């Protein structure tokens, strides 16, 4: 079943159009990877879906049009974003960062606390540092925190904006394992944009290729990997 679908999604900054009408789909239970170089429009795609910038075209989530919805309505609907460059609240404690992630929830403080403890079990290093300021964590820990914070809103769809940025390959690998596990165990659907194709393609159900604001290719990881020009440009072998 289609969870998210965009049609002719256009967005930009002032006079500058970054996305020139993209059509993508994320089905329930999938990990969809969108590959693109710097400036291709990956972050813009994420921000447009989350509703934090002006956008035109159609965005459908669970069959409902959300292109006019406010960011808080979109989060409440079940789409959470892990922003680029981690985007934690550096002055807030780790635990407060996660509580902020549960901001849109209307259920009891006790059930928010229960979720907090649940994710602390999944991310034990965050539990150790729960009272520390987020800004004092290492890059990898901050990225984990950004994911944990997004999970606190109980999303169905997780948008990950270049989680590997600035991280050592081993840490990136660990991070992607976590995302795969969340997808498998929690049924979380994921739309992940990356520049670093190698690792991301391993776990992708489907891949889109974004170039200067347009989708230029799409298919399974195997299909795109078999294409010589794509392999050379994005996988480097």
């Amino acid at each position, binding site marked *: 079943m289609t969870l998210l679908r965009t049609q002719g999604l256009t967005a930009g900054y002032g006079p500058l159009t970054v996305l020139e009408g993209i059509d993508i789909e994320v089905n329930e239970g999938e990990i969809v990877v969108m590959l693109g170089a710097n400036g291709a429009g990956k972050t813009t795609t994420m921000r447009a879906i*989350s509703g*934090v910038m002006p956008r035109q075209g159609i965005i459908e989530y669970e069959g409902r049009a959300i292109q006019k919805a*406010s*960011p*808080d309505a*979109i*989060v*409440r609907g079940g789409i*959470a*974003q892990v*922003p680029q460059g981690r*985007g*934690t*609240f*550096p*002055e*807030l404690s780790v635990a*407060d960062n996660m*509580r*902020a*992630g549960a*901001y*849109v929830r209307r259920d009891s403080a006790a059930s928010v606390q229960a979720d907090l403890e649940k994710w602390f079990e999944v991310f034990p290093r965050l539990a150790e540092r729960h009272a520390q300021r987020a*800004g*004092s*964590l*290492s*890059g990898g820990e*901050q990225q984990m925190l950004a994911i944990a*914070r*997004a999970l606190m*809103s109980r999303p169905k769809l997780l948008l990950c904006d270049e989680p590997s940025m*600035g991280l050592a390959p081993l840490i990136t690998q660990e991070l992607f394992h976590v995302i795969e596990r969340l997808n498998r165990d929690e049924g979380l659907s994921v739309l992940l944009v990356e520049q670093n194709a190698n690792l991301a393609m391993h776990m992708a159900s489907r891949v889109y290729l974004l170039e200067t604001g347009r989708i230029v290719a799409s298919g399974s990881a195997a299909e795109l990997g078999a294409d010589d020009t794509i392999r050379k440009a994005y996988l480097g072998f």
Partner: protein
Amino acid sequence: MALFLQRLVDGLAEGSIYALLALGLVIIYRGTGHLNFAQGEMALFSTYTVYQFGEWGVPIGIAVLLGMCVGFVLGAATEVVLVRPISKKSPFAVFIVTIGMFQLLNWLDGAIWGGQQLPSTAMGSKQVKFPSLFPSNPDDYFTVFGAAITWRSFCILALVLVIGAVLYLLFNYTKLGLAMRAVASNSESAKLVGIRTSTVLMFSWGIAAAIGALGGVVFAGLTTNVNQSLMFQVFIYASAAATLGGFDSPGGAVVGGLSIGVIQNLAAGYADEWVGQEMKVGVAFLVILAVLLLRPSGLFGTSKVERV
């Protein structure tokens, strides 16, 4: 010793008023990075309305609460109507807008209540003087170690500590407080977790102006009148207090305000040969200069340090 204690407590009381205004400045600055130049004048407008409620026979306690509500609405409306649309165009323009607000509000005070000191029997005021929230007769004092501490100074200091504690609880133990801290820390991420940042900023401006209103009323109670230039100096001291404490630290604003009050009073008291009442401002600013040379972000301000 007795004299020292007396001067200390009077300095703390004076500093409490700067602290209240400085708290307002810090709350707005944390949320948006704007320096609200009209903070003092917003407080003054609310103080005039407290005078007006007094004229209508409203007891001072209730008049102050009403004045704080007027302040809240004034602050929130300023954010929604002026600051929000303009900050999208240019953050610097917001500073100019708050200067405009400063002039507009001061003109409005004059247009409504006239240029005289109020209350004034010549102007037909029913009140004899601006009501004080706290006992302020000459014999309302108690003695500690031989020092005569006025109840008024004591209560003003207690008031600012209570306000500080309430804000601390608001920031650290409520959902609104969490949202305010999140917006201050990273407003894009705050939007992404579903915080309506514009609503939070509206509340921040409202709360800041309500606290400022309280500061204005307490100060008018000290000077026993309200007039158009009442808040000019207070605003300058409050800005200094916020700078000293660190512009993003509410606790720093309180400590900064109290310190400036104390330094001024002690300097004027002990070195009145060469400091005196005229120059006491200068001493406070010298101290601030020294602190900022050593700690550019203020006593409790955070210099942005983040591992990547």
